[in-house]
């Protein structure tokens, strides 16, 4: 494939297009005007991931914006996947921000609806939800491919974008989950990152449906992984985090070693085992490692999973 055939020419797009099993990470920007947090997280991940998601006011809590943090990550040697939620911006802001991000060299974007405001620290805010995530994907695709704004007006220079989306194989109704991914593909998504997976048999079942629809040939699928730091966190996710399915056997396994370093080691071990299992599933093109406030664990996990060195693509 020549450079001109790429949609955006991002590192992530190039890695995925070669068929190499891709690795993405995730960084949450800080709750304050502090550039050092993303700088440090980027330095930890540099060379171990092909690109890193920069979250956008995750869990509806205000933080440094994903555009500025994405720029900082790239200045520190890690390509950014800028997350963009429909919760905080209308279609004007989402178009202006992606044009701005593009002028700063950001090429990957992840289109999300966004966690509801009621989960965050400004529950009294007005939720925007002008578009939904599927509308957003389509809008960015038309900007890139048709050089058109959402209103149909032509723009001067189209933003080169590699467009991502999320999907949760563990949400209900289960029979809709692969079909909703199909809608996102039709809207224009190039890659998808799944919700973090703990229930591997259910994920495999979802992948069967995805393959039956032939979707794995139309979109690059990155399986979501969250390494667990301890049994407390595992129990919390099992009980309180909407959309996450943590089977009891995983919680039981995390409870065996002593708290602290032994449980952390077990959490990393489970993550590595899962990654190895995912590399064997037809249609899984990579993993998305969401080590929430535990970025330091990522290099070890990637190494142990046999995914080093990361490819150097030109």
């Amino acid at each position, binding site marked *: 494939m020549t450079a001109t055939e790429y949609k955006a020419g991002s590192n992530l797009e190039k890695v995925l297009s070669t068929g190499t099993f891709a690795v993405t990470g995730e960084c949450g920007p800080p709750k304050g005007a502090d550039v050092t947090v993303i700088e440090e997280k980027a330095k930890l991940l540099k060379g171990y991931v092909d690109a890193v998601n920069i979250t956008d006011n995750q869990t509806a809590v205000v933080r440094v914006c994903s555009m500025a943090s994405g720029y900082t990550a790239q200045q520190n040697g890690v390509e950014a996947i800028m997350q963009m939620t*429909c*919760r905080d911006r209308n*279609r004007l802001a989402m178009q202006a921000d992606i044009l701005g991000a593009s002028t700063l060299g950001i090429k990957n974007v992840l289109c999300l*609806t*966004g*966690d*509801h405001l*009621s989960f965050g620290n400004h529950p009294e805010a007005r*939720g925007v*939800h*002008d*578009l*939904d*995530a*599927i*509308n957003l994907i*389509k*809008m960015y695709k038309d900007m890139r491919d048709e050089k058109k704004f*959402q209103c149909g007006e032509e723009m001067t220079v189209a933003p080169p974008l590699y467009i991502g989306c*999320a*999907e*949760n194989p563990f*949400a*209900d*109704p289960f029979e*809709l989950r692969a*079909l*909703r991914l*199909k*809608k996102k593909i*039709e*809207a224009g998504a190039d890659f998808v990152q799944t*919700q973090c997976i703990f229930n591997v048999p259910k994920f495999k079942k979802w992948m069967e449906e995805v393959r039956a629809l032939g979707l794995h040939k139309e979109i690059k699928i990155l399986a979501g992984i969250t390494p667990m730091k301890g049994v407390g966190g595992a129990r919390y996710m099992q009980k309180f985090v*909407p*959309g996450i399915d943590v089977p009891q056997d995983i919680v039981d396994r995390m409870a065996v070693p002593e708290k602290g370093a032994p449980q952390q080691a077990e959490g990393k071990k489970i993550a590595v085992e899962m990654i190895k299992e995912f590399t064997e599933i037809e249609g899984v093109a990579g993993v998305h490692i969401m080590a929430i406030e535990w970025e330091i664990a990522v290099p070890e996990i990637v190494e142990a999973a046999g995914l080093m060195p990361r490819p150097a693509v030109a």
Partner: protein
Amino acid sequence: MITAERKPFDEILELVGDKKKVLVAGCDTCVAICLTGGEKEAEILASELRIKAGQDGRAVEVEHTAAIRQCEWEYLDMIAEKVEAADVVLSMACGIGIQSMAEKFSPKIVVPAVNTNMLGMPQEHAVWLERCGACGECVIGETAGICPVVRCSKSLMNGPCGGSHDGLCEVTGPDKEEIECAWALIWERLNAQGREELMFINRPPKNWSKSSSGGPRKMVREEAKPV
């Protein structure tokens, strides 16, 4: 119907301030049906205000009345005398009724005793559920008669999102009550109707200019105007 809830008593007292002649004005339409602002509720609030004034040793005259519909000029004429005699009108109508009253009797001070909250359906006695956002462009013909604009917490045109679980929304109400996932309901009913294919249409962005985003709306029916 339009539903409303009475404001906290302390807030009502602050709105009334030091006015000596207070008229509590109910409305016998929507707010009466939702047991918030009909004649009976106006009478109760007037009594509460008299008792409070008595406790505080203030000389305040409190009257009550109710219009058949506070949102229509001719029904306001019927209570005009009482309104004119008051220093302040404490309206228990919906936001439309309160504004009609304030406009009709301007510059009379008219203050709200209720918070108008939704276009709701009485699900059972004393329980109302939001059903319409008056968005100006109804889509429920494609969504099995279920409104995604107000019944989906994120107003998705292409749901359900990844927070849908066991038929419920990831969001809970203010008292932690469960909210049904609108898109799970839509899917279920489209199946029952044999119209599953409607679930797989990529619906375009909604035209919000038809809603209040387009500015205050006005409706004129030329054919119905008197000749």
